[in-house]
């Protein structure tokens, strides 16, 4: 961790490919949260994806090339922040092991120490304890796997959500069980993925909340896509949208039905 400096913290935003392509709102919500917390935010144009599709498919060469490219693009920042536990986990936990024994090893280690997932960065590093926004309605929160088990993200989003005026958190059963997304898993094994997400949407529906939140767009698109196919009225958003008070835009897929 860097020493506290009087000048504003320079954050490089790792947008993540899904947010870049499918839901830029999450990126702008992340920028707002970071700026409100006193950071200056920059977005290096040399970023693409964290490399998980290659890494988790056994393609180490492409994954390592993408890792080196990402490290080079973000090395100059005090912090690297991503609105995704999965991508942040890749940058923080897996780049060092991927680049171990190469000339990038030391750089990957140093880089790893500066990488954070958005919500845990706000709470654990910047000491944010509340957000000055309101949300009229009930939400339920899904703990995405990598964020939960690789980075220990569980209390932080709930802490900030509890400070949102008018918001009621209705916990679902088994919020810590996988939604069945798993990156390329969901298209390689669609039937198994479907069986798992069906269990998840059943838990979501029983929670009885109007909105489903999580910190990873991949999981959110999976759950939203299933909920929509099932005709559910539950709206789906990234947790950053609610925390930034930016829910004026339609929910994922343009709102419930």
């Amino acid at each position: 961790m860097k020493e506290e400096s009087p000048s504003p913290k320079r954050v490089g935003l790792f947008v993540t490919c899904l947010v870049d392509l499918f839901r830029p709102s999450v990126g702008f919500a992340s920028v707002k949260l970071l700026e409100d917390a006193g950071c200056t935010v920059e977005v290096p144009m040399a970023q693409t994806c964290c490399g998980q599709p290659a890494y988790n498919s056994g393609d180490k060469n492409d994954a390592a090339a993408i890792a080196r490219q990402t490290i080079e693009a973000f090395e100059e920042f005090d912090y690297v922040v991503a609105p995704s536990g999965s991508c942040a986990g890749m940058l923080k936990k897996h780049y060092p092991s991927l680049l171990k024994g190469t000339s990038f090893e030391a750089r990957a280690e140093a880089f790893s120490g500066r990488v954070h997932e958005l919500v845990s960065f706000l709470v654990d590093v910047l000491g944010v304890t509340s957000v000055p926004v309101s949300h009229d309605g009930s939400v339920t929160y899904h703990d995405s796997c990598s964020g939960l088990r690789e980075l220990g993200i569980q209390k932080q989003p709930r802490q900030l959500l509890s400070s949102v005026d008018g918001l009621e958190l209705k916990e679902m059963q088994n919020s810590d069980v996988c939604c069945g997304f798993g990156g390329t898993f969901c298209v390689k094994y669609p039937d198994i993925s479907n069986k798992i997400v069906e269990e998840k949407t059943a838990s979501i529906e029983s929670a009885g909340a109007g909105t489903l939140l999580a910190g990873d767009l991949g999981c959110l698109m999976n759950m939203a896509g299933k909920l929509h196919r099932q005709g559910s009225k539950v709206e789906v958003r990234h947790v950053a949208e609610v925390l930034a008070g930016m829910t004026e835009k339609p929910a994922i897929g343009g709102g419930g039905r």
Partner: protein
Amino acid sequence: MEIQSPQFKHKARKAIADEQLQRAMGKAKIGFVGKRKKAVDALPEFDELRSSARAIKDHTLEHLDLYLEAYERKVIASGGRVHWAETAQDARQAVLDICRAAGARTVTKGKSMITEEIALNDFLEKEGVRPVETDLGEYIIQLRGEHPSHIIGPALHLNKEQVEEDFRRVHTELPPARDLSQPESLLGEARHILRPQYFQADVGITGANFLIAETGTSIIVTNEGNGDLTQTLPRIHIVVASIEKVVPTLEDASQILRVLARSATGQDMSVYTTFSTGPRRPDDPDGPDEYHVILLDNGRSSMLGTEFHEMLRCIRCGACMNHCPVYHAVGGHAYGWVYPGPMGSVLTPSLVGVDKAGHLPNASTFCGRCESVCPMQIPLPRMMRHWREREFERGLNPATQRFGLGFWAFFARRPKLYRLATSMAIPTLSGLAGRARWFRSLPFAGGWTRHRDLPAPESRTFMQQWRDREVGKQERGAA
């Protein structure tokens, strides 16, 4: 057992459509997860115990040759015999030779995954020796001609109505009007049928949860007491165990026992923890006349020192599969060989080859729940990824997958080209969705849209919008 893992996808689909199976799995997952959590929550030092259990196994594997030789010396000193078996065939033959020498017609068996691994029952039957499974779950699946679907609950895939049907079909000598509606009545009937078998058997075969190097003792952990009867009543006791079961001392075994049952069934300890050391001594009240240990390698020694080394810490508690969303969805049989769930997805390719078991390490979301509950802290997702790397290196993935990945990587490694391509494709895709904002189907996205809708991209990419914002800022600054 013949490997059916190449048919994983097909078997998984069938399993998902099987209502009986889904009903059984639904009950099982709630039970195991809740019980483990209760046991672990009640023991504040559980995580420290995990670390120390892991350290014991790590140390043992570091010096596996020394501990195995020490163990062998102690077994011999206590009057037993050790048979080293490099392959499954060697192990089967060693069992058969002992049975033949004793003129054995019937063998009773305690629950043992290693004898499943070497497909012992089929072999013995072909050679004219009748194996009788005495663990209730194993007995049930033997009646059905099935294999275990779970390493500690072999009949986990069944509901009690199915068992009742099997008992009525096979136990025709019993009154047809008897009540078999309760689990207890089923257990009572199995016990009644099995009891005389122990006395008829010439040989009793068990596995081992631990082999103790300092004493030459083998330990089995059971809940039904059938293991004890299997190993004490017949004239000959054969222990079939794989080489990684050895630990240095009794103290080490008792440390690991503290995490084993808690992780498996949520019990503090299993009902029986049975120690056997050598054959019956002159002043012992009971016990076998001969005590044999068959030590199976079957590919394990070639895992030592590789990226799969840590898999050899596994103590077969089943916690990984009990917490696995994929296992819950498809059950154990879909995996197509002896070991299902996350531990099977790592071990099966090691033992039978990744060319045959390639689906298994791929069929994981990498949710990491298995590793988080593994009492031996085995990095199961990491090792599944290593298998994917081996497959990729050998070009074993399907061509379409490799092409798709290569296409994507080409752009992902060229940020400027990637920007250009996505800034054209995304607004187009967004426009295609029209007012619905959802795709119900899309070319090349069938895997996704078969079961769920795809939300359309909002509009332009974040990067496009961000660049506009930055340019706007600069212009405002310049004005």
